[in-house]
């Protein structure tokens, strides 16, 4: 599969036409100022998470968020002769950029609060009804600071981000590891109709669609490669909690209803899929710590 205009390094907002507005919205500034003055925190952590984050030596500072509304115009790319699929580089780029904008804004809010990091980050996609191809990416998490003033910022001097829950965060810290960043990679692949229909043997038997498999495999590997690149730039030791998802968002590669007699539009227009991987990059910061002993328990909370 041909890679799109999207080499190893993840795209940066600088490379894009729209500069990222570094000013947060009015209400955001007001809220953050107030939180700093009144010393009242807000957080979407559950009680158990809140207490465990405190137990791990961190103070929750406040709920932080960022979002970006993005218009994505899906276009079916030209598939080079002899290939079974192609990466749509500019779409990979756009989807990455939109998430990055949301995460940067969340990070800005956290920096404003003087945070060391953000735990429980959730990256959500909202599809709004008011226009076609419009997505909103939203990042939400709880900003935390180390209670003893030890800096837990990452290699870029920024607050770390992690999608770990309070429980996972406590376990990680108790074992001598700490998160350094929420890392992600993506790849939007276009699979033309002939790949979806390509079969080698008799069509009356079940068989693997080898070319289709290959395209998806390739796209997934590209996405994971980009995830690893991000983690390396943070000098991470590893990535935990990696999830790989296939997303179709809402675009579709063509108009529905033009399909073959079985009504599957993908057979005439092909498929446009985003492979998206995320995880939390971690490093070992205290070799003296080890995981506390593990007990067996029967939970009664059902």
């Amino acid at each position, binding site marked *: 599969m041909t890679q799109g205009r999207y080499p190893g390094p993840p795209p940066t907002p600088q490379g894009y036409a729209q500069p990222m507005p570094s000013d947060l919205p009015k209400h955001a500034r007001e809220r953050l100022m107030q939180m700093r003055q009144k010393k009242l925190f807000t957080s979407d952590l559950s009680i158990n998470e809140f207490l465990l984050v405190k137990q791990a030596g961190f103070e929750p500072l406040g709920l932080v968020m960022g979002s970006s509304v993005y*218009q994505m115009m899906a276009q079916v790319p030209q598939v080079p002769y002899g290939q079974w699929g192609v990466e749509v580089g500019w779409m990979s780029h756009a989807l990455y950029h939109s998430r990055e904008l949301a995460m940067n804004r969340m990070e800005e809010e956290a920096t404003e609060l003087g945070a060391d990091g953000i735990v429980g980050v959730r990256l959500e996609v909202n599809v709004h009804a008011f226009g076609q191809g419009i997505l909103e990416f939203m990042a939400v998490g709880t900003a935390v600071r180390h209670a003893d003033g030890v800096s837990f910022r990452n290699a870029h001097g920024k607050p770390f981000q992690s999608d770990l829950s309070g429980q996972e965060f406590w376990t990680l810290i108790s074992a001598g590891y700490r998160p350094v960043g929420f890392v992600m990679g993506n790849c939007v692949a276009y699979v033309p109709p002939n790949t979806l229909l390509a079969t080698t043997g008799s069509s009356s038997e079940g068989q693997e669609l080898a070319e289709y498999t290959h395209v998806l495999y390739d796209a997934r590997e590209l996405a994971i490669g980009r995830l690893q690149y991000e983690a390396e730039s943070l000098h991470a030791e590893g990535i935990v909690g990696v999830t790989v998802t296939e997303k179709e968002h809402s675009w579709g590669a063509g108009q529905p209803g033009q399909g073959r007699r079985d009504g599957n539009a993908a057979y005439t227009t092909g498929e446009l899929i985003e492979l998206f991987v995320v995880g939390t990059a971690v490093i070992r910061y205290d070799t003296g710590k080890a995981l506390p002993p593990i007990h067996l328990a029967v939970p009664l909370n059902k």
Partner: protein
Amino acid sequence: MALVRRTEPALSDLSVTEFLVLSRAGFLPMGLVIGTSVYDAGITWNLGQTREIPELGFAMHQARKLAVERMRAQAKEHGAEGVVGVRLQVEHHKWRGGHTVAKFVALGTAISFDRAHAPQKLAHAPSLLLAGQRPFTSDLSGQDFVTLLRAGYRPVDLAMGSSVYEIDPSLLYNYIGGTVELIPYTQAFFNAREGAMDRLTEDLHRDHPKDGPDSPAGIVGVTVDERVHTGSGFVVEYSAIGTAVTALAEGDPRRHAQLPNPTIVVPLDR
């Protein structure tokens, strides 16, 4: 010291575990408490602009508060110290000839400390009632409530905030065919969400002043809900809700009870 006494069985929507965990910590359910409010927010003018609609946001907030206050009044009647597991249900906003009508139901279980049956050293623990003998409200589960107490905190009040924004769809014409960030929309959504978060603390600071006995230390379990109203035009409502908590009173024997150091367990439930 008033003895908790009931002449009839108390209703509750607690699960078995919640009930057991609460009673072990000395708390008993006093009854299921409900508060409702139907609110007419009047006619909203659709201006076709990207702007906040303060009247609507205010109405949504007011309706929620009314429902919660009625629930609290019921809890007080039951002689409860507070309400746990509050759920706020919204019956969908209906448009009645241009009027926005919203129905809210707040539902939870009123609980009280049973001094007669509590462990000896907790028998003189002060009540968790707020200033003015008002029961506390919270959306915590029974387990969460007990864990919170064990860590030296108590719930104060549900914290709520709403904000309603109108979004101008015609701005989209500026972006036809492009793959770009729609900055005005980003700003509008961002502001709406932040507005809801902002108001979360507004009432709280007024109801529980900073130097008062119930001055909150923080809000936990915040969730931000998005609801799109599709009447005429494009109206989006954000509502944030969480539970404000504060440290236990000076004389409370539970105050210095540290949360035991957690141990790692392998659950055997699967």
